[in-house]
């Protein structure tokens, strides 16, 4: 399995929900200082439901494709559901195996979205796992 699957490249080339919102209820932006990738998410929310969202930024195929896929996934969902999304959900959407470095790319959009949904302290992929 190759990380440059057609599906990833399609999203990279023609991302869904790319852009910004005029008057977002929630807007959050974050970068990965190691590679400079940067994603911003703008959300319009009604009764906790995400009615509209846009992302923008720059980055590698993985971080942009992940952002695009994620926006498709969460549109129409409740913020509480967004808060439940984890690393594995994001990897399922991407459908490719990611090495430790690219994992950070793959999770950047999710991090931004969750940080938007509520304050987040650390990277989703880096939540300190228990040793057991």
């Amino acid at each position, binding site marked *: 399995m190759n990380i440059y699957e057609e599906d990833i490249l399609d999203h990279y080339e023609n991302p869904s929900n790319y852009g910004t919102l005029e008057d977002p209820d929630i807007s959050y932006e974050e970068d990965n*200082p*190691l590679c400079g990738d940067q994603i911003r998410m703008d959300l319009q929310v009604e009764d906790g439901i995400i009615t509209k969202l846009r992302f923008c930024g720059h980055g590698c195929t993985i971080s942009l494709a992940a952002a695009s896929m994620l926006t498709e996934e969460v549109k129409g969902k409740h913020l509480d559901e967004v808060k439940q999304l984890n690393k594995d959900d994001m990897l399922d959407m991407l459908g490719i195996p990611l*090495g*430790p*470095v*690219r994992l950070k790319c793959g999770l950047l959009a999710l991090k931004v979205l969750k940080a938007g949904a509520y304050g987040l302290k*650390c990277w989703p992929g*880096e939540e*300190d*796992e*228990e*040793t*057991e």
Partner: protein
Amino acid sequence: MYAQPMNNSLNPLDSEAIRNDFSILKGESDLPLIYLDSAATSQTPDCVIEAMDAYYRTYNSNIHRGIYRISEEATAKHEEARQRIGRFINARRPSQIIFTRNTTESINLVAYSWGSANLREGDEILVTVMEHHSNLLPWQLLSQRTGAKLRFIEITDEGVLQLDGLDELLTERTKIVAMTHVSNVLGTVNPVQELIAAAHDVGAKVLIDGAQSVPHFNVDVQGLDCDFLAFSGHKMCGPTGIGILYGKSDLLEEMPPFLGGGSMIRSVQRESSTYADVPAKFEAGTPAIAEAIGLAAAVDYLNKVGLEAIFVHEQELLEYAHQKLNEIEDITIYGPKPRQKTGAITFNLEGIHPHDLAGVLDTVGVAVRAGHHCAQPLMQKYGVIATVRASFYLYNKLEEIDTLHDGLLKAQRMLTRRRR
């Protein structure tokens, strides 16, 4: 203390089978190697050597930030090693495991980073008289930098900590207690759990020097509730060049960096920088990658044999060693009896220099250590300059103690004539 009670229905350890795991113990030299110096460094089982070879021969590459197969494999194996080592001491999170070169560097890291940030003139650092220089010098240097005062817990003639009057030593002025879990000279197992609780009662942090405990019995950092634990790979069947510092997360997070360089940063500007989260913050530069992987293999090996079985086996060796060595005339054995200690027996023979004992023992293939064992304050307490130490590990056999015994008699025959 150590994981008690021992499960006596435990399968005894098969030291013959174990010896087969160590190439060095199968060597074909004229004299067999009777290695009784594991407290200095342990022997390395073949599986550990092979784990490192596999790194070098199949996926050698720098970790973190490498976007290609072997670098991803090396990164994954390195971080998996952190996990396995963390689990071995029951750390809650892998990020509490910081890779260093050895116990010495682990302790210095705390003395520089935590120490310089937290100690002031008037504060006190409490250590014991039985510390290895590696758990004394960093605090002496810190005390010179900060003006904090070093205080000492004395030991009794039997070689156990003198805890009456602890109230005098352990006070609100005490900011950190740095003590060894097990004495590298006497084998004494210290009541660290009680001391940690007492230290926390006065608001002091506790660093445990686990160099001689982690290899020999189950050390549970959450059970002990220690703030820091330091130990070395090379004393627990692992390679040289790797040690561990365990720390409580909140402490590690608020500590300033120690060494600056690659990998410990989040972002660098010309004049200043922000730092990475733990553990990366304390791991500047290319780490000892092969060695971390080797240490994880050692931990797996010790788990496979079983720490409890190792402990029971060592107790058996110790009891026998005490019994045999006590038969020798003019011997002085330092420290407590078996059951209150682990791993080592330290002694002198009247009128024979420890160097000569070690030298004569070498002629019969027995490797022991003679000297101050990096514990001069302890030697001063006993009024000696040096002692001989025989120390045991999972691969030693009772018969080897017979050879030790006979070698000592040989030394007496050779050297105790009519010297003044």
